[in-house]
């Protein structure tokens, strides 16, 4: 019970902080002081107190999009073990459910975007569909790298098998998995070099383009949904890079939070130092991540599991 409450607390409280850290890092790179670290919380609070404007074109799907995207991100967070060894909804085969839940959230976000009939949001949905289709194989291959040595299909067992190894990388396959997961994290969370979350110009509009028409509590759900998604995919990556020792309790939570904050700083650095890729290059970036993970898998098969 305590584990479950801790899990929920982490999932509900921490995610917006990561956005704040990323923004702060980018501000530091640009030589600005930047918004306060807690600005995303203030934004959410402001949005939750607003009314809403809906386009006459829209149906209930437009209103359902933000709700489903937040709910699926939370549910994916419940499938993934965060600080403890197991997760509230984990089972043998939950890796596939994890991928499926992220897909469901995306499906409804895209449907909500198409519901407005706006060409900008259609454009965003189209690009999101294309890039996520290429990101999905990479994510699955990275998960396979984690599952195969553990001989288990549950994220809990797969991540638990890592903790017996010393922190860091006991096998080149894990390095490939970590790099692949980092690429997927950038793509899934609409970060540079795939997407630019700070603008919604036509040239960059992907995720931000899709949610142009949302406002008020709906936009708050969209923002927190993407924050939770960043946190969840980030937690997966952090647990690969910094596996917590078994039975670590609160130390595991600390390790996770340190890892997540480090990851957020890393994402901020990538965003400050790189330009966004040209759109036709993005599939190549993601296929590259798949190939990397595939090489990791080959290493796993031919060199033997760690």
């Amino acid at each position, binding site marked *: 019970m305590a584990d479950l409450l801790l899990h929920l607390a982490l999932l509900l409280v921490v995610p917006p902080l990561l956005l704040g850290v990323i923004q702060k890092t980018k501000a530091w790179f640009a030589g600005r002081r930047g918004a306060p670290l807690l600005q995303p919380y203030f934004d959410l609070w402001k949005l939750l107190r607003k009314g809403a404007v*809906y386009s006459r074109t829209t149906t209930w799907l437009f209103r359902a999009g933000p709700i489903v995207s937040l*709910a699926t991100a939370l549910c994916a967070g419940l499938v993934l073990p965060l600080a403890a060894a197991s997760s509230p909804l984990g089972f043998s*085969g939950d890796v596939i459910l994890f991928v499926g839940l992220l897909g469901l959230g995306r499906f409804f976000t895209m449907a909500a975007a198409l519901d407005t009939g706006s060409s900008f949001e259609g454009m965003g949905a189209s690009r999101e569909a294309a890039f996520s289709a290429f990101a999905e*194989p990479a994510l699955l*291959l990275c998960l396979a790298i984690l*599952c195969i040595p553990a001989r288990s299909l549950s994220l809990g067992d797969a991540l638990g098998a890592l903790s017996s190894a010393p922190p860091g990388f006991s096998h080149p396959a894990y390095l490939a998995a970590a790099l692949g997961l980092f690429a997927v994290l950038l793509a899934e969370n609409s970060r540079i070099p795939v997407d630019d979350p700070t603008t919604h110009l036509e040239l960059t509009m992907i995720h931000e383009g899709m949610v142009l028409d949302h406002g008020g509590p709906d936009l708050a759900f969209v923002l927190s949904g993407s924050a939770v998604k960043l946190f969840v995919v980030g937690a997966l990556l952090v647990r690969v890079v910094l596996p917590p020792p078994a039975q670590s309790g609160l130390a595991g939570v600390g390790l996770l939070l340190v890892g997540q904050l480090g990851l957020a700083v890393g994402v901020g650095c990538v965003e400050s130092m790189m330009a966004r890729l040209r*759109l036709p290059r993005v599939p190549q970036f993601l296929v590259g991540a798949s190939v990397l993970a595939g090489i990791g898998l080959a290493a796993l*098969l031919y060199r033997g599991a760690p």
Partner: protein
Amino acid sequence: MVGTILFAIALLGLSALAAALLTRFDRASLTIGTTGSVIACVTGASGALASLVRRGSSALRGTWSLPLGEPHVAMDALSAFFLLCIFVVSGLAAVYASGYLPTYIGRRRLGPAVALFNLLVAAMAGLVIARDGILFLMNWEVMSFASFFLVTFENDREDVRRAGMSYLVASQFGVVFLFILFVLLGRSSGTYDFDRFAATGGLANACFLLAVVGFGSKAGFWPLHFWLPEAHPAAPSHVSALMSGVMIKLGIYGLLRTLTFLGPPAVWWSTVLLLLGAISGLAGIVHALAQRDLKRRLAYSSVENIGLIALGIGLGLLGQSRGNALVSFFGYSGALLHVLNHGLMKGLLFQGAGSVIHATGTRSLESLGGLYRKMPTTALSFLVGSVAISGLPPLNGFAGEWLIYVGAFHGAERLPTAGAVPALVALPVLALIGGLAAACFVATFGTVFLGLPRTEGVPRAHEAGLAMRSTMGIGSLLCVAIGLWPAGALRLVVPAVALVSEVPALASDATTPLFAISRAAFVLGLLVALLALLRRALLRGREVTQGVTWGCGYAAPDSRMQYTASSFVQPLLAPFAPITHVRVDEEGPSGYFPRDARYHEEIGDVGERFLVPGTRRVVHLLSQLRVIQQGRVQLYVVYIVATLVALLVFELMGAGK
């Protein structure tokens, strides 16, 4: 028991006869045909279900004076499972037809269409219970011809006639291989009775290849699928639902049935099916994305789903040939569950497409849009079908694909390297197919039902009638039910899997996680409900206004500015350009005062590109034979005499030995 199924078949046959005799009275023949098929389908489905739950099997042998053995019918778990799929999807399609067909009254006689529909269902059911080669092939041919005439229902249209011919040629091409298959099996075992069919070694290999080509051409394996995107869209929508939903699955049934004759599989068999599955799945969904015709898109997606089923069977064979029961169990059960799931969701989607075409008179994705407000029930069930076919939780498509994924994961984990590699390759292929399918169906649903109407006719659209709405409602409910309770659906699959792969039932390995999926679906539903309540509570008493969609400051937005189906899929298709074979006919704006510009794009099919020239060459070769056909009676008499003399000489020489 098998008697129930025979009763259902007899009822279907009698109602077909009655409908055919009452051709002059459209309404009467439709009523009789629908009543007959609904009663037959309900009886048959409950018979099959009872047999699956009780895990019984029953057989019946008859006598007839034909050579080549006695008629033999039986229902084991594999038959019962496919019968369940056939009767559920056909029953729904029959009710749908009673609302859909009356639009043709005055333009076309309904009697033949109703009679042929019932005949098709009867032949499919007969095919599945047939236990001897002759009966099997007879039902196979009745099925092919009945569906051919149904495809050419609107035979005044040139494209429909062409589609029908291509379908006829494909099905007769496939059946040649089946004849050879059954003759080979029959000769080696001395009978055409399935119970005594057995083959090993080289004969088994030959039989496997013949079955893959013969049954694969019916199922629609790439590149034998070329008829499918022509024929399925040409047929009336309830027939498309039946053909895509269950008829092509009978190719899968035939393949599985043949595997039961062949003993332990060779390792390369699994490679063949995994390859075919991966190619069919990827090529199917990429071509589906490229289509602009709603029904063609759905037809190509059937090729994709057949690919998924083939991947499942391939994993099953992989596990079997490498002696891992877990892999083969998950592979086969995933394939079979997907057979049922795809029947339900493709039936649903084709019925939804039929309602849209019925209401708007167009099937071009580029002209539709904004239909949600006009036809909410159709739209909602199309949404259910779209989420399901994208393999997303918590609907039935996810449950089936989950089993196939788990089979691939287990294969990668537990098999030696040579066996793990194909299973590993299946993983990203499955993921890519899933991602592309989600993109394809969100685009389809979005361009048809969301946004604003793109052409004039669409605003006058109306919701479908009660019969059509209720079948789509039942279909959606079944999709949701299997998705929320996959462990229940697995119980129907397990007995059939046990027949094919001869593994001890490892169902508990699958049922516990499937219950966990149900639990996760429940939690997801709870979260959605909580958030919806939160949103409602937050917005209570606040200002909620309606406005126009934000157009980035542009003052005169127009429905034609919406993103279209083609523009949606452009970034997805760009990396696949080498396999889609797009022909572009373009005349861009030019000069200082550009006037007209033109852009026309046609999507070819790589299969077509190789098949058409190949077929031409064969036809050219065969036309050389016309030399002996001079059309003069005297010449034919000479041929007859020459043949008789040759036979006489042959016989005399034989007698002399």
